[in-house]
């Protein structure tokens, strides 16, 4: 990105930056000025202090949460794309599975957390399964939307050029479905963080969700908010990674 675009982006976003800084300053001034107990109502500076003061503890738990979200997400992407593709190719499969998928999509999968802990233990597996279950349905639905949304003119055009089935798949069908698949991945990656955190909160021995519950129960709110900040940054980083990959792979859209 060159300097002029950077400058443009800054002029476009300065009201937001000003508001954010003003709110942080007000929060800092209010908690310090009123002399509120820092453990219960921490100032932003105290939150940042907690972040660095307990960095080693934070990292040890963050690592677990990070790899479980990625594992659950990747699982949902692979299986979601395969199933989404299958249901959009076979009419009978679509007619029989789509209503089931819709019902499961509406169901609050987070409610399954205690049951998954009972079945798979309070460790890594139950968290990955919950992350997978939550993140999986947007992948299926978006893949199906992408495959079915192919412009019919493109199909006839490709047929008129007598391209093979494989060429049709790699050059026409898959690239055209990718747009919708990426939209699904952006939803799923956020949901997989939610899945892991819910499972860690409900039955945790480790991970950021557990650490958050532990810190909150000791009324160490500075550390609690620091953990929340790490989770927010992690969610943002995953989303940004998918968005970056999208601009690289779908270069023709830009």
């Amino acid at each position, binding site marked *: 990105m060159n300097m002029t675009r950077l400058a443009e982006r800054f002029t476009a976003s300065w009201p937001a930056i000003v*508001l954010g800084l003003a709110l942080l300053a007000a929060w800092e001034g209010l908690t310090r000025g009123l002399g509120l107990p820092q453990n219960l109502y921490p100032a932003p500076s105290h939150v940042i202090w907690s972040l660095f003061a307990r960095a080693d503890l934070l990292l040890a738990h963050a690592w677990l949460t990070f790899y479980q979200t990625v594992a659950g997400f990747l699982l949902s992407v692979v299986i979601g794309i395969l199933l989404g593709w299958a249901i959009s190719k076979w009419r009978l499969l679509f007619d029989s599975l789509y209503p089931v998928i819709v019902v499961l999509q509406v169901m609050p999968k987070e409610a399954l957390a205690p049951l998954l802990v009972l079945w798979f233990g309070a460790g890594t597996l139950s968290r990955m399964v919950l992350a997978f279950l939550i993140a999986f349905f947007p992948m299926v*639905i978006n893949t199906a*939307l992408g495959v079915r949304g192919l412009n019919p003119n493109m199909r006839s055009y490709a047929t008129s050029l007598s391209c093979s089935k494989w060429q049709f798949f790699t050059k026409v069908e898959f690239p055209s479905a990718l747009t919708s698949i990426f939209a699904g991945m952006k939803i799923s990656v956020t949901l997989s963080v939610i899945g892991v955190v819910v499972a860690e909160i409900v039955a945790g021995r480790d991970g950021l969700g557990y650490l958050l519950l532990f810190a*909150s129960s000791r009324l160490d709110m500075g550390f609690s908010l620091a953990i929340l900040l790490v989770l927010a940054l992690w969610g943002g980083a995953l989303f940004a990674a998918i968005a970056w990959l999208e601009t690289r792979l779908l270069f023709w859209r830009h």
Partner: protein
Amino acid sequence: MNTPAVPQPRALPNLPRSTNARATIIPAVVFLAIGLAWHFAVTLLKVPPIVLPGPAAVFDAIVEQRGLLLEAAISTLTEIVLATAIAVVAGFLTALAISISPMVRRMVFPYILMTQVVPKVALAPILIAWFGIGMQSRLILAFLIAYFPMVINSLAGLLGTNESSVRYARSLAASELQILLKVRFPAALPSIMSGIKITAGVAVIGIVVGEFVATDRGLGKVIIESTATMDTALTIAGVVIISALGLLVLGALEVIERHIVYWQPGR
């Protein structure tokens, strides 16, 4: 402004559906087959009921514990409806303010988009430390989860009005209030309705996760406590009922939508 680039979780897409008898018979057969497979897998493989009770045992648990479940369901449903209503009103008013003032939009909207990637369920322990184990914490959690999708959807609707209809109304000497009420609001309604559906769907999650952590009442409490006593049939009964409540709320909104947005094609 175009529709925001940030995804909307749990929106139900309008995939092409089969309209003939196929569309009702096949799903019925599939759901029946799933139930039978569950029943026979449990009985033939002799799965211990602590691990997975059959559908009959779950049904028995619902009948046996109907008093407990009904009381919990009423409490959960009340909180879902309350949280949804608050989030819908607050979200719509925020969107209205943002749509009227470009300055407010530039100040607030980036943050509203950013909240979409934050796992807001992680607020549950923090809210309980601040507000205690009660309805208040759960309502705030569900509100914080449900509010932002409502803002984004309402705003997309309010800013997506066809500007030529606005100019036409202006040429008829319509006041700004009239334009808002008679042009912008009706045009935004489909988007607002889908916002309300998403809001209700995620409010369910907020309330249930809240009940898992602040276990003073509700279906989440029944689910958590029954796993502690290894009463798995009751756990599954709780999950089934919370899912049914979710479907009930969305079904009701779907009916309302069909009456309100009757002019929208394909609905």
